[in-house]
C-alpha cells in the first residue's frame, strides 16, 4: 500500500486528511456544481444577476421546458437508437476478431492485430471526407444506420485489442482439450470461449455505450437536424438557440450527461475494469 495508510499517521493528520477530502472534491467539481445549480435556477434569478447564490426557488420547470419547447427528447431518443445497436454490433464483431487473433497462429496475425490497434489511434479528420462521401453516396447520410455502421467499424479497432488480450489471458488448455475431443472451432467459440468472456463483454458494452453516447464529431459530420442527430450534436445546436439562457443550457447538459453517468454508477466495476485493462500488467 502506497502511500502510507492514513490510519497509521498522527490523529491530527487523519483529521486534516478527512477535511481535505471533501474540500478537494468541492473544488474539483466546482464547475459542474455551478452548472447543476444553474439548471434549477428560475430565469428571473439570472436576469437579476443572482448567478451564484442559492436559487430563489427550485425551477424544475426548466427541465420540463426543454422537453416541451425543444426537440431534446428526440435528440435523446436518437442517441439511444444509435448507441445500442453500435454496442451490440461492436461487441459481436470484436468477440470474433479478438478470438481469431488470440487463439490461432497464422502468419499475418500480429500484423492484423496491430492494424486494428493503430487504426484506433488515427485522427478522425483523415477519415472524414471519404467516410462522409461514402455515406452520402450509399444514401445513408442522415440515417441512424450510416452513423451506426461507422461507429461499429471504428470501435472494432479498440475492442479487438481489448478482447484479444482478454482471451489471451484465458486458460488455453480448455480449448486444447475441446479440440482433442473433436469439438468444432465454431462450437469452441460459442460454447467455451463466449461464456468465459462475459466480464469482458460487460466491460466493453459499458465503455462503448459511454463513448458513443458522448461522441460528437461524427454526429455532426454524418447527420443533421433533430430527426436523427444524437444529443451531443443536438446540444450544440440548441446552445446556438439558447444564447444567454444558461438555465436551459445547464438543464440540457445535465440531462445529456445523465445516461452515461448512471451507466457508470451502476456498472462501475465493469467500467473501470474496461478502462484500465493493461494498466496493471505489462
Amino acid at each position, binding site marked *: 500500500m*502506497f*502511500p502510507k*495508510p*492514513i*490510519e497509521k499517521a498522527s490523529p491530527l493528520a487523519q483529521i486534516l*486528511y478527512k477535511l481535505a*477530502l471533501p474540500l478537494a*472534491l468541492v473544488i*474539483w*467539481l466546482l*464547475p459542474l456544481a455551478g*452548472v447543476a445549480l444553474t439548471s434549477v435556477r428560475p430565469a428571473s434569478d*439570472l436576469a437579476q444577476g443572482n448567478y451564484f447564490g442559492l436559487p430563489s426557488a427550485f425551477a424544475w420547470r426548466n427541465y420540463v421546458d426543454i422537453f416541451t419547447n425543444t426537440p431534446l427528447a428526440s435528440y435523446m431518443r436518437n442517441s439511444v437508437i444509435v448507441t445500442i445497436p453500435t454496442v451490440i454490433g461492436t461487441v459481436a*464483431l470484436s468477440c*470474433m476478431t479478438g*478470438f*481469431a487473433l488470440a*487463439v490461432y497462429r497464422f502468419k499475418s*496475425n500480429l500484423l*492484423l492485430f*496491430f492494424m486494428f490497434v*493503430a487504426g484506433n*489511434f*488515427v*485522427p*478522425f*479528420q*483523415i*477519415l*472524414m*471526407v*471519404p467516410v462522409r462521401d461514402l455515406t452520402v453516396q450509399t444514401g445513408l447520410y442522415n440515417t441512424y444506420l450510416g452513423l451506426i455502421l*461507422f461507429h461499429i*467499424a*471504428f470501435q*472494432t479497432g479498440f475492442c*479487438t485489442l481489448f478482447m484479444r488480450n482478454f482471451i489471451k489471458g484465458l486458460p488455453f488448455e480448455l480449448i486444447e482439450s475441446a479440440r482433442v475431443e473433436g469439438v*468444432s*472451432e*465454431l462450437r469452441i467459440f460459442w460454447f467455451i470461449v463466449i461464456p468465459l468472456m462475459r466480464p469482458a463483454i460487460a466491460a466493453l458494452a459499458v465503455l462503448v455505450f*459511454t463513448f458513443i*453516447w458522448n461522441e*460528437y*464529431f461524427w454526429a455532426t*459530420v454524418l447527420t443533421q437536424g433533430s430527426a436523427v442527430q444524437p444529443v*451531443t*450534436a443536438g*446540444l*450544440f445546436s440548441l446552445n446556438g438557440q439558447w444564447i444567454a439562457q444558461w438555465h436551459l*443550457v*445547464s438543464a440540457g*447538459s445535465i440531462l445529456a450527461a445523465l445516461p*452515461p453517468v448512471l451507466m457508470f454508477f451502476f456498472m*462501475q466495476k465493469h467500467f*473501470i475494469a474496461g*478502462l*484500465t485493462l493493461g*494498466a*496493471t500488467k*505489462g
Partner: protein
Amino acid sequence: MSGMAAMSPQRKTSWWKRNQRSIAPWLFLAPGIAMFALYVIWPIFASIWLSFFDWDGLGKKAWVGVGNYVELIDDENFYTSLKNNVIWLLMFMLAVPAGLFMAIFLNQTVTGIRIYKSMFFFPFVISQVVVGLIFSWFYAPGFGLLYQLIEWATGTGIAFLAEPDYVTYALVVAGLWPQIAYCMILYLTGLNNVSPDQIEAARLDGAKGWRMLWHVILPQLRPATFIAVVVTIIGALRSFDIVSIMTDGGPFGSSRVLSYYMYEQALSEYGYRMGYGAAIAVVLFAIMMVFITGFIWKMVGDERGV
C-alpha cells in the same frame, strides 16, 4: 461434449473438419476486417489521394499536385493551428502527473473513499460537449464563475475566451479536467497492484516520500504510465470537441488546432475546400503516426517478450 464426439461420422473426415483450424480464423475475422477496411483503412488512402486535388464537394475534382501543400506552407492559420497543437500536447501531459498525485491522495481506506473516487472520476464520464458547455459558463465574461472570482480578487475580470493570448490555455484546462480523471483511475488501479512486499522492504531500507515514489513505486506503475501517456497524447492531438463547442477556433482563429482547422476548411459554412482540408488532415495524420509508430513499437516489443 461426449455427445458431439459420438455424432462425428465414421467416414473420412470432411474437408471442413480437416481445414477448419486454418479457415476458422478468417471466418471470424472477415466481418471485422471488411468493416475496418472500408471505414478506416481505405479512407486514409482516399484522403491522401484527395489532398492532391482541388474540390468544392459539388463539381469536378481538379488535380493540383502538391498545390495544397504549397499553400499550407504559406498559410498563417496553419502555423497558428500547429502552434496550438504543440501547446495542447505539452500542457495536456500535465494530466499524467496530476492524475498520479490525485490517485496517491485518494489511495486510502477511510470510510466513504469509494464514493470519493467515483466522484473524482466523474468528469471523464461526461461528454466533452457538456464539459465544453460547463467551462463556457465558467469562463463567461460578466457572470462566469471564474470571471467573477477574478474580478472579486483583482478588480477586473478576464474574459479568457476573448483573449487571443490566453484562449488556447483556457481550452486546454477544460480538456484537462476529464483527462486528469482518466489518468487518476489508471493509476488507482495500478496502485492496487503494487507489491506490498517491495514497499515493506524499501521502508525497512529507510525509503520514504519522494524517493520511495521515484525508485520503488513508479517502476511498478510503468504499465499504467504507458497507457496514460498514450491516451493523453492521442487525446491532445484529437482535441476537437472542446474547440468546436467553446470558441469555434476564435477569436480570429487564435484557438484553432489542426483537427478543427481541417473541419473548418472542408465542411464549415465558409469551407468546402475538401482537397485543402485533406492536406491538413494528412499533416495531422503524419504527426500522429510518429507517436502511433512509437506506441506500436513498444507494444510489439512487449508481445515478443511475452
